[in-house]
């Protein structure tokens, strides 16, 4: 089986703005500060009426962060977090700038999620009386996967293609690939990409049913890891064709399928290797040019061992690779954008995060797997995001 389908190199795209809001706080600096201080965002599960015994990455204050009246039709926890994330780090100003440069219909919205607003649908079922949905939840637009894309369109006024990608935990990494293609093919000149996922019963009790939730804070790649911590997050980035002025760039993407199992990774990491190989080929760089790799690293026994072996097969000893899920929890459909933001912070600040909570490396871990933070200037950073269905995406970011 080939390790790459040898796609042609792409023209790198400018990243005009980027942001994330997670359990670590609101906006880029809150993320960078918590990564540098090795301060976790996880807390004992206090979500819902009957919480499971686990730890979660919860964003504070959403309960008090109602949407502006003009957007009230989109009310739900997920769209509240989307709105909050859109307000950080000059993101809306960057959207306005590309809209002014190109026109609203020349800017796409491509956003990822795993559950979108299903928390609102869960609430509709829980509060239904005599099989009637409560009046305040009779809003069909929030009871469908595209609720997030529809909301972001309403919130930004952009009028190009608006798409919600839902490939489970690879969702908001794949949005970079789809947006890059839309720009490369000349359909649009810029794109707002990102993703949002919020805590809800479906994911907490769903992952619990699969036996994948830990009773402790997640310990990625630790010998004794026993499952994941779930989190919620939102993040966005503005991509535009590069006129030579970009300081941060999307250089390559790779997507693949495991062709193996709905909820277990391919035992040899086949899909992961294909995705990483294609991302490097599109970026036209060699593996040893990657300075930091943010791993999918969920802290489940199967995922981490497979990913560690795939990394060891592809990269040399010098790579600094880590999972940041001990900081934020696994933010599912938002993991792609959150961890892309961490990769961009690594490029801008030279801050290479280690792996929180983990003590003794699994024997599958190669020398690339780092538990301690490092400070070093790097030129390229990579992010891996893998999802149910064996759906994989790798992204390469660079400093100009």
């Amino acid at each position, binding site marked *: 089986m080939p390790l790459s389908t040898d796609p042609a190199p792409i023209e790198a795209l400018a990243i005009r703005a980027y942001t994330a809001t997670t359990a670590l706080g609101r906006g880029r600096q809150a993320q960078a500060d918590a990564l540098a201080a090795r301060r976790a965002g996880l807390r004992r599960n206090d979500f819902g009426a009957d919480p499971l015994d686990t730890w979660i990455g919860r964003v504070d204050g959403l309960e008090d962060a109602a949407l502006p009246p003009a957007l009230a039709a989109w009310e739900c926890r997920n769209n509240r977090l989307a709105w909050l994330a859109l307000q950080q780090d000059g993101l809306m100003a960057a959207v306005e700038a590309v809209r002014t440069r190109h026109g609203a219909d020349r800017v796409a919205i491509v956003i990822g999620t795993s559950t979108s607003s299903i928390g609102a*649908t869960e609430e*509709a079922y829980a509060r*239904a009386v005599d099989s009637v949905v409560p009046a305040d939840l009779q809003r069909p637009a929030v009871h469908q996967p595209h609720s997030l894309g529809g909301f972001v369109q309403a919130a930004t006024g952009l009028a190009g293609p608006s798409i919600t990608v839902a490939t*489970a935990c690879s969702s908001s990494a794949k949005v970079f690939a789809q947006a890059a293609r839309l720009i490369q093919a000349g359909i649009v000149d810029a794109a707002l990409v990102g993703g949002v996922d919020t805590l809800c019963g479906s994911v907490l009790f769903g992952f619990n049913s*699969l036996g994948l939730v830990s009773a402790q804070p997640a310990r990625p790649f630790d010998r004794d890891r026993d499952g994941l911590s779930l989190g919620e997050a939102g993040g966005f980035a503005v991509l535009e064709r590069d006129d030579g002025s970009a300081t941060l760039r999307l250089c390559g993407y790779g997507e693949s*399928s*495991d*062709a193996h199992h709905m909820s277990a990774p391919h035992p040899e990491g086949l899909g992961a290797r294909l995705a990483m190989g294609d991302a490097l080929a599109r970026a036209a760089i060699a593996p040893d040019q990657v300075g930091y790799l943010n791993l999918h690293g969920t802290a489940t026994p199967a995922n981490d061992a497979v990913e560690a072996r795939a990394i060891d097969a592809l990269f040399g000893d010098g790579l600094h690779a880590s999972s940041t899920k001990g900081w934020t929890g696994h933010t599912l459909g938002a993991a792609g954008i959150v961890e892309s933001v961490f990769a961009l912070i690594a490029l801008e600040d030279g801050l290479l995060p280690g792996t929180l909570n983990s003590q003794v490396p699994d024997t599958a871990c190669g020398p690339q797997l780092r538990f301690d933070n490092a400070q070093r200037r790097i030129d390229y950073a990579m992010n891996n995001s893998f*999802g149910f*269905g064996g759906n994989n995406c790798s992204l390469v970011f660079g400093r100009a």
Partner: protein
Amino acid sequence: MNPLDARIAGIGFWASGLPSWEAAQAFVADGRLPDAAPRRPSPELLAPNERRRAPESVAVALEVALAATRAAGHDPTTLASIFTSGHGDFAITGYMCETLADDPRAISPIRFHNSVHNAAAGYWTIGAGCTATTTAISAGPATFAQGLLEALVQLATGTPAVLLVAYDVESSGLLGTLTPSRGLLGGALVLTRADAGDGPLLRASLRTGAGAPPEGPLALRLRDNAMAPMLPLFDALAAGAGRVLLDAGAAQALEVEVEGMHV
């Protein structure tokens, strides 16, 4: 924008009452309906026990995906794919929400992993042994148009062939009161680069304006399914040629022209 184009290498179709592309073509030609249509598809890609247990959304998506791939004579193991559905599987979403309200610790792990929007895409790549990229997208009423656009954009950026699958199923329960959707409907196209192959030519471009109201036989007969916005194109394909305006969201429509079908 410059128009995007592709060759149509294969078509798959399955709707309640019209359980194949041949049946759909016959219906468009002279209003004929099959005497006895199966209630749900039975996709050969799945093992017999999985076939019975598969959610309806997965069953209809895999049925049309396999039909289109076979019609194209294309090796599915290297075929990129795009799965589009406005709502995924209403029944599983309803099951998750009902169980969470009643007894959250009783959720079935299989139903949970089948609840992801990319369940059909996952079963397809696993069943077909396909390691190429696949995605699962939605865009409200513009879901099909955005899926077709992504397929054409993949071809324009170097992918040699793409499988596009569109489906939505019947809604029920509380979700059904919010979003009515009737019957099962699925459509699939295998598209190849316009400079390769000799299938009929499809040309598309985004333009300002709304989609056109449905008026073909398939669009009128199956208008109550949430994936009905795809039907004007399948009416044109069955008729052998035509130009349609598909709702592409916001204030845009995807204008699609088909020429050279031999029906």
